[in-house]
């Protein structure tokens, strides 16, 4: 029987009353990177355990949404979509929205979903919302292939340097979504029926983002309001890459988005950390 002795590398830990604002502890998060890894692996394993159904469900969701909006807005209302058919116009932004809303949803629900282990074991709670980002990105990868298929069928796809912009856009999107997810995760601790409200908020957010319609149908003087939503500019940029629509996204605009997303993420992380010590007490 040998106990792993690491006394010499152990710095004393003080357990004191929480302060009003607590900051994220990145060193500790780093020490728990193994947990992050196994949580991500757990999510992936569980998702693909029923391989066929798991995979089908991921591509079925965007397909169903696409069909519905295609019939109503594409065929019946005939929303103008420029040089591409409506279903592709829709899908190119919808997969981005899916990534965004999935990160928010999964992050916000990750505390409630893992409450059993939270009230029995210490670990930095933030690994739970953070681990959801990877599953969402994997789903995005799959729906991205679906979009690619449609682009190929309609001969819109061309191998281009534009696609180099995708990683940059993905970083901005995930940081932004993760920040919002942390904020909602923190609120979920105080208000357990927040879940319903969150669904409602996301629904409205989707309608207010030019996903199923182009920004051009909004009167010009109101467009600025839509651009207060950082997702609007992001969706524009994604469409520029996928559909060659609109203008080359401006570097300074992307930089501003990144800064805003990062600030939001840190605010979310601080609110989350300040709330996390209440989780075990109220649940």
């Amino acid at each position: 029987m040998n106990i792993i002795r690491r006394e010499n590398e152990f710095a004393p830990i003080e357990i004191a009353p929480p302060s009003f604002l607590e900051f994220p502890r990145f060193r500790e998060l780093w020490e728990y990177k193994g947990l992050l890894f196994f949580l991500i692996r757990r999510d992936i394993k569980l998702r693909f355990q029923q391989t066929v159904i798991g995979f089908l469900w991921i591509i079925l969701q965007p397909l169903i949404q696409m069909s519905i909006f295609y019939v109503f807005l594409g065929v019946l209302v005939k929303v103008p979509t420029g040089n591409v058919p409506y279903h592709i116009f829709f899908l190119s932004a919808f997969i981005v929205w899916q990534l965004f809303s999935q990160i928010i949803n999964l992050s916000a629900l990750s505390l409630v979903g893992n409450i059993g282990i939270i009230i029995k074991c210490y670990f930095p709670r933030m690994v739970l919302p953070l681990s959801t980002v990877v599953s969402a990105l994997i789903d995005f990868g799959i729906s991205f292939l679906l979009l690619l298929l449609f682009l190929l069928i309609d001969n819109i796809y061309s191998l281009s340097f534009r696609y180099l912009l995708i990683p940059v856009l993905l970083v901005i999107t995930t940081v932004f979504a993760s920040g919002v997810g942390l904020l909602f995760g923190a609120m979920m601790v105080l208000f357990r029926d927040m879940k319903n409200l969150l669904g409602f908020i996301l629904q409205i957010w989707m309608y207010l983002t030019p996903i199923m319609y182009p920004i051009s149908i909004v009167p010009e003087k109101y467009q600025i309001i839509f651009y207060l939503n950082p997702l609007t500019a992001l969706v524009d940029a994604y469409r520029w890459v996928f559909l060659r629509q609109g203008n080359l996204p401006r570097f300074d605009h992307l930089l501003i988005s990144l800064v805003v997303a990062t600030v939001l993420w840190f605010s979310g992380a601080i609110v989350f950390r300040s709330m996390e010590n209440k989780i075990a007490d109220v649940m």
Partner: protein
Amino acid sequence: MGRLAIKAENVSKKYQIRQGLGGLQTSFKAILNAPFNWLMRQNGRYTHFHPSETIWALRNISFDVEHGESIGIIGRNGAGKSTLLKIISRITRPSKGKITLYQRVNSLLEIGTGFNPDLSGRENIYLNGSFLGMKLSEIKQKFDEIVTFSEIEKFIDTPVKYYSSGMYMRLAFSIAVHLTPEILILDEVLAVGDAGFQRKSQEKMGELLSSGATIILVSHNNNTIRNLCERTIWLDNGAIKMDGTSDIVVDQYSKFIREEN
């Protein structure tokens, strides 16, 4: 005097008991009701709406634990035993005072928490180990020992939902005691399982103790406490009623309980 493992200084813990716990609706109602409650109070009249009530689960607890000590915690239901262990395990924070840990803590507050029924025993060992703060290399190093102790070699790649409850508990216990670093915290977990498993786990605890681990355990079984712990802390109504040699404290406690009934 040995070296300190845990130091608790004037630790108190307050819980809020909220009516209709934490809903948006209740909160809105509370906000809407606030002015009326205020008016009622101005008239010196009884208000039926109490937004929250507080409980002091721990009051001014202070004690020191040294390396290699084994400490039993006893007390009636609601005395604050679990709350104390939760603070030492860093699951919740104290409302006042502070605890300093000089060794690494590992806690087993419930058998098998964090197990995912759809994952195999192997997967769960890694996931559970990392929840407990272990590094991948440490888990790997201990993996075979864990599997052998829990006697589930043949089923290690089977999802744990197909395990019998005995197998499930053996695996969970095995993970905790093998990955365990310097301080082990147990909340009434030695009471589960069949006689064979209980004997085996008590033996394991003895082994851990003789190898120098610090142990804090809550148990309703006076014999377990007497066998495993030199020292016992008796909590009553959130405060320390007695702290001393197990035999003496357990005797006093038994007498107290007998007299009360």
